[in-house]
C-alpha cells in the first residue's frame, strides 16, 4: 500500500535510474533514491553525472561489484523513511554477518563513498571482533604477520612494572632467539670477533657472584654492545661510593646464602637482589644512542646501560641454570677466598679501583 502511495506522490521520479561504474569497468543501473543515500554519489548526481549509460558515475577503486551490491542493499533498506529503530537495528545485525575479509572491504568501500552510518556499523563490528581477544587470536582473524620481536610484544604500559625478574626472563627469551639467529648468520658470514676488553663489567659481576675470572667464557656475539662498555668508566665515578657499599652488602647476603643455592625461590631472591644492586650502581647513567645499535633495542624503554647489565645477568643466569648445581656450589665456596686476590691493574673502570682499595683495606 505504501509503495503505491509513494509512486503516486512523485510521478516524475517513478523508478528513476542512474548509472554507476565500478573499478573493473562494469556499469550498473541503480534506482535514484537508493543511490542518493550515499553522499559521494549524491554529489556526483548534482553535478550532472550518472544520468545516462555513457556518462556513468565512476566509483572509487575500493568499490568492486560484489561490495557495491551489499552497499546498495544497505542503502535500499535505510533510505525508506519511517523505519523504526528496532527494525533498523535488526537489519543491521543481520547485515554485518559476513566473513572478515568482506567486512574489511565493505568498511573501506563505505568510507570511500562517505557513507558514515555504514562505516560506523562496520567499525563497531570490527571492534567487537577485536575486543577481549588475545593478540594471537586477533592475528589469526585478520591474518596479521607476527613480525614483532619479543620485547616489542610486551605491552607498552604493562612493561613498566618495576620487577627485574620479569624483565630478566623476557630478556632471556629474547636473547635465546637472537642467539639462534646469530648462529644462523654466522654460519653464512665471516665475522671477525673482536676481543674487546669487557672485563670491567664481567668482573663486577664475578665479584658480586663470588667468582673469579670465569667471565671470559662470555659470548661475544653482541659486539656492538661491547663497544658501549668502553664508555662506562667515565660515568661510573659518580656512583662510586654508593656502589662500594652496596657491593659489600650484597656480598654479605651471598655469603649467607651459599648453602641454599639450589633452592629455586632463593635463586629468585638472588636474582632480585642482583637486579636491585645493579640498578643502584647505574641509575644516573644515560647513554646516547649508538648508531650501530639494533633498532629493536631503541624501542625498549629500559635505560640502555641498565640493559647491558641485565644482558650480562641473563647470560650468567642462563649459564647457571644450565650447569650442574653441586659443582657450582663447590666452585663458589672454593673461590670465596679467591675474590680478594683480584688484580688491581684493571684498566677501565674507576669503580674497580675502589673495589680494589676496599680489598686492600680488608686485608
Amino acid at each position, binding site marked *: 500500500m505504501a509503495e503505491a502511495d509513494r509512486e503516486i506522490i512523485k510521478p516524475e521520479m517513478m523508478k528513476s535510474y542512474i548509472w554507476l561504474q565500478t573499478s573493473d569497468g562494469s556499469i550498473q543501473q541503480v534506482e535514484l533514491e537508493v543511490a542518493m543515500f550515499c553522499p559521494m554519489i549524491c554529489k556526483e548526481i548534482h553535478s550532472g553525472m550518472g544520468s545516462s549509460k555513457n556518462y556513468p558515475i565512476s566509483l572509487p577503486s575500493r568499490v568492486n561489484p560484489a561490495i557495491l551490491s551489499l552497499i546498495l542493499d544497505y542503502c535500499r533498506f535505510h533510505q525508506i523513511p519511517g523505519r523504526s529503530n528496532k527494525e533498523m537495528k535488526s537489519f543491521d545485525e543481520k547485515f554485518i554477518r559476513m566473513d*572478515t575479509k568482506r567486512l574489511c572491504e565493505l568498511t*573501506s568501500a563505505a568510507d570511500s563513498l562517505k557513507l558514515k552510518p555504514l562505516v560506523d556499523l562496520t567499525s*563497531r563490528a570490527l571492534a567487537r571482533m577485536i575486543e577481549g581477544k588475545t593478540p594471537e587470536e586477533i592475528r589469526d582473524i585478520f591474518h*596479521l604477520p607476527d613480525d*614483532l620481536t619479543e620485547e616489542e610484544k610486551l*605491552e*607498552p*604500559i604493562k612493561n613498566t612494572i618495576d620487577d627485574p625478574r620479569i624483565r630478566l626472563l623476557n630478556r632471556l627469551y629474547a636473547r635465546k632467539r637472537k642467539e639462534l639467529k646469530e648462529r644462523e648468520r654466522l654460519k653464512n658470514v665471516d665475522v671477525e670477533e673482536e676481543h674487546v676488553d669487557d672485563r670491567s663489567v664481567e668482573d663486577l659481576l664475578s665479584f658480586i657472584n663470588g667468582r673469579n675470572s670465569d667471565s671470559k667464557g662470555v659470548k661475544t656475539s653482541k659486539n656492538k654492545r661491547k663497544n658501549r662498555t668502553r664508555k662506562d668508566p667515565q660515568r661510573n665515578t659518580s656512583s662510586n661510593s654508593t656502589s662500594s657499599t652496596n657491593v659489600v652488602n650484597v656480598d654479605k647476603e651471598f655469603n649467607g646464602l651459599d648453602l641454599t643455592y639450589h633452592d629455586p625461590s632463593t635463586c629468585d631472591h638472588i636474582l632480585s637482589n642482583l637486579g636491585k644492586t645493579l640498578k643502584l650502581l647505574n641509575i644516573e647513567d644515560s647513554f646516547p644512542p649508538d648508531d650501530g645499535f639494533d633498532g629493536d633495542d631503541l624501542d625498549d624503554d629500559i635505560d640502555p646501560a641498565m640493559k647491558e647489565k641485565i644482558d650480562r645477568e641473563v647470560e650468567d643466569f642462563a649459564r647457571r641454570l644450565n650447569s650442574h648445581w653441586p659443582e657450582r656450589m663447590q666452585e663458589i665456596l672454593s673461590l670465596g677466598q679467591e675474590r680478594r686476590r683480584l688484580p688491581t691493574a684493571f684498566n677501565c673502570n674507576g669503580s674497580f679501583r675502589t673495589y680494589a682499595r676496599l680489598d686492600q683495606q680488608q686485608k
Partner: protein
Amino acid sequence: MDDDLRGDLISDLPQSIIETILTKLPIKDAIRTSTLSRKWRYKWTTITDLVFNDKCASSYYDRPNSENNLVNFITHLLFLHDGPIHKFALSTSFLQSSPDIDQWLLFLSRKGTKELSIELGEGEWFRAPSCLFMYSKLTHLELVRCELDPPPHFKGFLCLKYLNLQQVLMPPDDIENLISSCPLLESLTLSYFDSLELTLCAPNLKYLSLEGEFLDICLENTPRLATVSVAMYMTDDIAEHFEHSSSCNIDKFLGGVPCLERLVGQIYFTKYLSVGMDRGINRIKYDRLKIVELYQVNFEDLNEVLAVLHVIVSSPNLKELQISGSSNTSAALLASDLGIWEKECSKDYMFDQLKTVKITEVSGILHEMGFIKFLLVHSPVLKEMTIIPSAYVTDGRLNMLVNLVRYRRASAQAEVIFVQEQL
C-alpha cells in the same frame, strides 16, 4: 586475489577508520593492539578519545593498590600518546584528589581538548586547578564532586555547549558568571547544589536540568529553551523563603520560554511555581509545549492545583500529560470552591491535541477527582487515560472507581485504564 598471499586484511585501511575502530574499543584493548604486528605498533597512539574507568588498570597490575595503578596507567599512556586529544573522560571511585590529576589537566590543556569529564570518588573533593580555565576549545564539560574556583580574569569558555556540574562547590556568583560567560551554551545540568538563588542568562540554551535545594530560579534570558527538568528539594530555609517571597514564580520561571517543548517538574517544583499565583500572571501561550510531566503535586493545596491548570491551559498543543499526586490521605476534604476549574478556562476550552494522560499516586481526594473530571470533559481527542491509585490507599479505591465511571467524556475513543496492581 588469493587471501593467503595478500594476508593482512585490516592494517591497510585508512587511518581514520582504524581510529574509529580503536575508539570503539575499551582503552585496554586499544593499547593491546600495539602487540599485534609492526604496522599496529603505534596505531593506537593517535586516538583522540580517551575514556578511563576503574576497569582500566585492574588487570594489568596484581597489586591491591588500585589508586596507584590507575594513576600510573594514565600517566604512562599520556606519555606514549601522540597528537591531539579531543576527549578525556575519567570516572573512578578509587581516585580522589591527587596532584597527578592536576598534571594531567595541565598536559591536556595543551592538546586542544574539547570534551572533559571527571568523576572522582567519594571522599575529599578534587579541587580543579587553574589550568582548567585555560581550555579554550572546550565544548563539553562534566564535573562530579569537585571544587571550582574560577580566577578573576576568567572570561568564560567561549565554545562551551554542554555543561554538567554535579556536587560542585562553587561560590554562587561564580556560577551565574560562568553560565553567562559561555555564550554558546546549549545544555546545562546542575545537580545537588545547596541553597542556590539562580538567575540564568543563556541566550542559546536549549536544555536545562536542575536538581537541588534552590531558593529561587529565575530564567531571565533563555528564549530558546526547549526542555526543562527541575527537581527542587525543600529545607526549612527554603520554605521560609517561599513564605516571604513577593514575586510571582510562574512568571519568573516560565515567563520567558515561549519555545518550550517539554516540561518536567519533580518534588517541590509545583510548590515553587504556586508561590505568588494570586499576584496576577502574564498569560503566554506555549505553542510548542507538547509534553508536561509534573510529579508530586499536592492536590490539597489549591494554589498548586491552579499552577498546574495554568500551565496546561496555556499549552494549546499539549499532547501528553503526566501528573502524580503526593498526598497519602484518603480523607475527603471540606468542599472547597469547586468552581475553580471553570474559573481558569471557559467551558468551551478544549485540549485539542491531548492524547495521553497518566495520573499516578491518586489518593481520591477531592481536587484530584475534580482534575480528572475536568480533563475528561475537555479532551476531545483523548485516547488513553491511565489512573494508578496510590499504594497507601486501599479503602477509597471503590469510591474512586464509582466516580470515574460517572464522569462525562468528550472523547468517544477514550480508554480509562485503572491499574489495580502496580507491577
